[in-house]
């Protein structure tokens, strides 16, 4: 079980990463997160939308309503240029965080 705060911090890079590979709508984004993380990242579905709204306000993503073939209204999101830059920064930050954690957790000599 991943705590709420950590989950909330990671939504931004995850969503940006998914949208980097192409535009998509909310329901599908969730399904893909669940799929790709092997079920580790299990969000309450509704909580995705406030995050999307926030990212859009920060101009990291953009959206448009599209009517599907079966007539359903769907809001598609795509990543912006600012979004790509933000993702690069996020990735660097997370990488250094992971590196730092690995260094700290490196097994000490003589112990497992």
């Amino acid at each position, binding site marked *: 079980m991943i705590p709420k705060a950590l989950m909330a911090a990671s939504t931004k890079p995850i969503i940006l990463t998914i949208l980097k590979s192409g535009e998509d*709508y*909310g*329901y599908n984004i969730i399904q893909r997160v669940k799929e790709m993380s092997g079920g580790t990242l299990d969000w*309450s*579905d*509704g*909580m995705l*939308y*406030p*995050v999307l*709204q*926030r990212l859009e*306000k920060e101009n990291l993503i953009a959206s448009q309503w599209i009517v599907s073939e079966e007539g*359903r*209204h*769907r*809001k598609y999101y795509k990543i912006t240029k600012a979004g790509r830059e933000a993702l690069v920064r996020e990735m660097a930050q997370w990488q250094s965080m992971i590196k730092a954690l690995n260094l700290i957790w490196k097994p000490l000599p003589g112990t497992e």
Partner: protein
Amino acid sequence: MFDLKKAVSDWKRSLRKYESLEDGAIAELESHLLDEFDRQKGKGLSDEEAFTKAVAAVGRPEEVGGEYFKDSRRSALAVPSWKRSRFSPALLLNFLKVALRTFRRQAGYSLINVLGLAIGMACSLLIVLWVRDELDFDRFHRNGKDIYRVIALGKQGNDCNSPAPLAPAVVAEIPEVIAAVRIGNVPRVVLQYEKQAFYEDNGIAADPTVFRMFSFPLLRGDGSFDAPDRIVLSASLARKYFGNDDPIGKTLLAEGRVPLKVAGVMADVPRQSHFRFDYVIPLKLAEALDMWGMQWGDFNFRTYIQARPQRSEAEIIRKLNQVALAHRCPQVIHKMAVFSIQRLRDIYLHPIGPYDIPLSSKTYVYFFSFIALLIALIAGINFINLSTARAEKRAKEIGLRKVIGADRSQIVAQFFGESLLITLLSLPLALAMVGIALPHFNELTGKEFSLRLLSSDLAVSLAGIASLVGLLAGVFPALYLSAIQPAQAVRGTLPFRLIGKGQAAGWVKHGALRRILVTLQFTIAITLIVATLAVGGQLRLIQEKSWRLDRDQILTVPIKENIGRQYDLFRGELLKHPAIANVAAKDCLPTEVENNTTGVSWEGKTEDQNTLVMETIRVDENYFSTMGMEIVAGRGFSKAFPGDKETAYVLNEQAVSKAGLQDAVGKPFALYRQRGTIVGIVQNAIFQTMRQELRPQVFHLFRDMATESFKGVALIRIKAGQRLAAVIDHVRGVWHGINAYAPFEFHFLDQQIDAQYGSERRLGKLFAAFALLAILISCLGLLGLVAFTAEQRTKEIGIRKALGASVPRILNLLCREYLLLVILANGIAWPIATIAMRRWLQGFVYRASIGAELFLLSGLSAMAIALLTVGFQAIRAARANPVDSLRYE
């Protein structure tokens, strides 16, 4: 049939409450919901199941809305509009304003509430004071946890006393016991210093360890009992005899012959000690004076032991009996008694046996706590009744509050706040009442409470009681009122649906709850009235059965100093006064017992009469005539029969019947193997407490009054209609003519007899006070209810009158219900009171009956009071001019 379209639109509507969810967001969530729905359908679920799962997957709308809101908020503390604010000063102010406004507008009802609550709280407070005090006894001893009292549990009753040799044996032979103290009560003696002499009642004889084991601090001197002629005085006693002089080393004279050197001054014994005393003399002195039997068979001392911190009580008890057995204590050998121990802090509330120092009893503590609860309950019921009855007045306000967004918890908080406010308002009133009642309360209970006591930690319990009462009284009205539905309230379709559903709600709706509560109040009040009357009846019976002269008074004067030796001179001098009819002597006060014995024998005494105990009484020849006791057969003692001193016995009727004697006069009788003859039979006369059966008594004459009358009294019969002060002056003159140092003292015998029933009289007074309060508070509540009903039915009454109803009919309409409730309350209270009072009367040998007139009296008086209360309001309503009430329609 499940309608997906409708379900979705309902779901969307529920989302609208959360304002941060804009239309776009809702549309997006809807599309998500439908996608999830399709996926669930794909798994083969029905429409309904799939929809439920999809809704669950989207998550709680409140949380989603909250997340959206976080994005749009401006301040970190902002709260979404659909949540009530954490705290809003304006609202609080409004609550306060509304509360005060309601208070003012309904001043009468509010006053009844405040007054009722104040009385209830004052009562509870007094009783809390008392209960706490009772529970706090004997807590001041540093070694208190390790101190026990040795007691004897016997076949024929328990005894708080134990034999003198037990204490040294126990210390020597039981390793767990590190110290022991024996204490004996010294009978009243005259203490004298130079010209000053007083009678002292509260002396003890004790082992020197008493000051080490117990925490009675010595202020001066070392209190060492290195010689038997020592005494330790309390500070106030020292002041009485020596003023501001240093008493250490000075000598007091006891009974004019025993010198006692002051070895120490101790602080006055705290009030909360189960035994209190003004002076201590060494036990060795009492032993030297041969005051008490000191053998293993003489149970004459209270023995306290101090145990090691690590010990087992059961082990101590086992060893205690072993020691007694090894020393051949006769009672233990014959299995008449076993020794046990009692913790120091338990002693006060658990008296052992009939000879224990007058203590308290756990029963009274429970009993009065219970009464306090009842009185508080009655006051609380008033509050509930009046608040709910007036709900209608508040319904529109509550409806409006709800319409503009108040949720239930806010309304509950508002009404809790109001009840707390009322309680706080009644608090100072309650305090004032306590202040007024305290002196009387102290007199009743024999305590010394003062309001200063309240200022300390009691302030906390006071605030505790107040808020508890406020919350308890407020919880029901708060839940009741907050349940009002705005639509119904504003539309005016009351009575509305209230808390809960079904039966309970129905009851509340029809005012049944209110009726139940009124009945409960009156049940309590009537029970207390019956109890008051029953106690009063018993006290009257005691007065009737107790011996007394029709008109003459008996004055009792102790036989002290020279009176015993010069009794004939004393008597002759007294009789010179024309108002003194006769003078007699007895070995102790008639209310006391000097000696009991099984050592009596007569012709034909059977085996099972061997346990028959008779009270032996030494008197002079004038006793029966002075006391007005009739000789039923034979004769009384007389100087004309010089042999009477050695061989004459007079039995009372009880003794004759218990001994099974026929034609007893002239038959042989022996007391302690002293053979003699029964010369007469005297009528039964009860002087002692009626908690025990009248004893068989055998009277015999003093042989040498000087040595046999240590506790003796002279009984002086004064003719009726004389100036008592002059007679007493005469007696005083005779006294001082014969005595040199002993202070003169007198009592009236009838007062001494009555004094034995002090606790019963106190109980009667307390019952009366509680009954009065219970009735008072109940009637206050009733007054409020009736006033309210009359007001509510103003128009109905107007129409009825306009159509020709008479005043009595209207009265009937308004009062009947409450009178029926009081009658019902009578029906419930009578059996409860009967059972309770029967149990109380069990303690007496002679019991007053609980007759029908008692119930009728209590029932009728409760009814009359209720009628008076109800009637006043009802008459006002019934006599009102219908034009006034109908005019504005």
